[in-house]
């Protein structure tokens, strides 16, 4: 692979160590529509990387490429320094990439434990091992301090939006996700529940997971993210640590792909 090629400055890893996931020159087109053009992005472990951009900027396409749902036409992806090709969601899951979709992908009629283990149930001589699954689910939920559910045997239908989001996130953690991708995790939530979910997102990064969060809500983004990547018409307009950005700069980047304003603390890169 052409790993040693020239790196655009915008994508220089913040620490200097190898990022968990590195995208170089990722391009995706749907028929005549150029959805992503030459996108570079590093996603380091232990940080929350927010992906911003106007509608149609290519945010969903980018996360679907990372989640293995779309295969990019060209470009390289490397995971922990090794080149990878993600052809199916299963490939991504095998690496440790878990996606929490906007519609959460939970079964209302199943309970929390059943949802968290769906597709990967533990069995003992082919019979479902409910005790072991319930214990593991409980440990994961309490390690994330998701404490507002009274019983993990209640059907997901009876949970609030924030609780459902928490269950979906805990499911990713249960499966040892190294990278958790979240698509609009707070879009349908009220104020307190948004705070609860953002706190959970922060906790996830503090535990060493890489988190990538797509959000329209700049309040949320500035509250929780370490770095912000802004897509503009399928191109990566900028990837910067949050200290070099303010809301106005991000809005400029989202709407025009560039910003002439100076950052609050340091100068622009």
């Amino acid at each position, binding site marked *: 692979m052409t790993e040693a090629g020239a790196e655009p400055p915008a994508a220089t890893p913040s620490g200097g160590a190898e990022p968990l996931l590195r995208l170089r020159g990722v391009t995706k087109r749907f028929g005549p529509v150029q959805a992503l053009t030459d996108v570079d992005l590093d996603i380091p472990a232990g940080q929350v990387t927010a992906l911003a951009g106007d509608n149609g900027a290519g945010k969903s396409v980018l996360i679907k490429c990372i989640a293995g749902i779309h295969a990019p036409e060209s470009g390289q992806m490397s995971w922990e320094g090794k080149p990878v090709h993600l052809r199916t*969601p*299963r490939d991504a*899951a095998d690496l440790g990439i878990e996606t929490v*979709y906007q*519609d*959460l*992908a*939970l*079964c*209302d*009629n*199943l309970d929390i434990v*059943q*949802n968290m283990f*769906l*597709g*990967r*149930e533990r*069995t003992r001589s*082919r*019979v*479902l091992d409910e*005790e072991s699954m*319930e*214990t593991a689910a*409980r440990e994961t*939920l*309490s390690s994330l*301090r*998701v*404490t*507002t*559910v*009274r*019983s*993990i*045997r*209640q*059907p997901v*239908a*009876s*949970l*609030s939006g*924030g*609780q459902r989001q928490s269950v979906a996130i805990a499911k990713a953690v249960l499966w040892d996700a190294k990278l958790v991708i979240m698509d609009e995790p707070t879009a349908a939530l009220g104020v*307190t*529940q948004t705070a*609860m979910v953002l706190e959970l997102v922060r906790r996830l990064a503090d535990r060493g997971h890489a988190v990538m969060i797509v959000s329209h809500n700049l309040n949320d983004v500035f509250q929780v993210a370490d770095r912000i990547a802004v897509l503009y018409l399928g191109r990566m307009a900028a990837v910067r640590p949050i200290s070099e950005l303010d809301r106005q700069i991000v809005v400029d980047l989202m709407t025009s792909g560039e910003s002439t304003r100076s950052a609050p603390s340091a100068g622009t890169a």
Partner: protein
Amino acid sequence: MAKVDPTPGVVPPEEEPSEAAELAVSAELVATSVPEYLKAALARVRGGEMGILPVVGGLLLVSIIFQSLNSHFLTAANLVALLVQAALFSMLAMGEIYALLLGEIDLSIGFVAGLGGVILAELLKPTGFDWPWWAAIAVSLAACALIGLIQGSLITRLGLPSFIVTLAGLLFWQGLMLRILGNGGSILVSDATVNGIASGNLTPAASWIVMLAIVGIFGVMTWRRDARRRAAGLVAPPKGVTGLKIGGALAGGVVVVLLCNADRGRLVPIQGVPYVVLLVFLVLALWTFVLGRLRFGRYIYAIGGNAEAARRAGVNLSWIRTFGFVMCSLTAGIGGLIYVSRLRSISTAVEGGTLVLYAVAAAVIGGTSLFGGRGKAVHGVLGGIVIAAIYNGMGLLGVAAPTQYMVTALVLLAAVTIDSLARKGRSPGR
């Protein structure tokens, strides 16, 4: 003894109380005593998870009505006859539940049962194949499973609606059945084992032994599972509730055996639990295990609840769906066996269309949702008993068939209404 955590569930010590108080949570199983448990169960009913409550209520209502109109209804002899009548409906309903759980429907099972019966009768015919009973039953059930495989494959591989595929199946298998039987034809069955399923009984002593063995196995399994959950510190029903469950099963078993052991013969004494009741019970136990304790069953519920979520979780949707239809048709085949056994023959008079409607009605009356993802095998059995009770009661009153159809239709409508209302009650975003 197993330690009982006062607040089971997910409550680590360092949590801030404010965080826990933020969200209103529906009262669920955090109970540690019998009254609390009952309160939680009541809350669940209010939340739209009514389980078997409506069907038990309906059964009581039907019994009271018919008993007040004809005092013969609640006699031991009639109740046992009712159980035998219910066996066919219950069996077909237990098959239909696989399709309903998937959010699909299978309209063909009435004639699949009929065709299974024809195959069975043909294979047993002394002047024809003259096979032993076990081989004939095995081949007839395999043929029914194959029908399910064909229909299920058409539905999943080609993406055709199950309603249409199984409607075509209803016509096709009816045609095939009539073709084999010939114009107005029928086949008599003289095999003692097959005929004995519906008309034979365990001896009274054997009835007691079998009942005690079943309740004993159920009791040990239930007690051990709850004890294991308590030991692991998981949410478990309190010991009192575990005891109540086992006691309830024992009481039910005693009542059934007492009813069946009462002499119901007119000329010669007839006593004991009919084999067909045992057969229904066996299938009920098996299907409950398959749906509740195996991955296959879990995926059936997951697909019925949210097929897209199941697909993303890596569940093989077409395989599970197809196999669901196989289970449905296979169970219909057992229904065909019961049909043949009861009539000691099979003829062109099989009303497969009516039977499938009774099967769907029984499943829904029992508490299975038409919208997928909610239901249990036991719903089919209970619903089948309700249908048989209406059938039997109106027979006692001398009500003609047209009225029976109309009353059954009204009961079905009532059941679907309850299902629909309950669904609204439990829809998310309340």
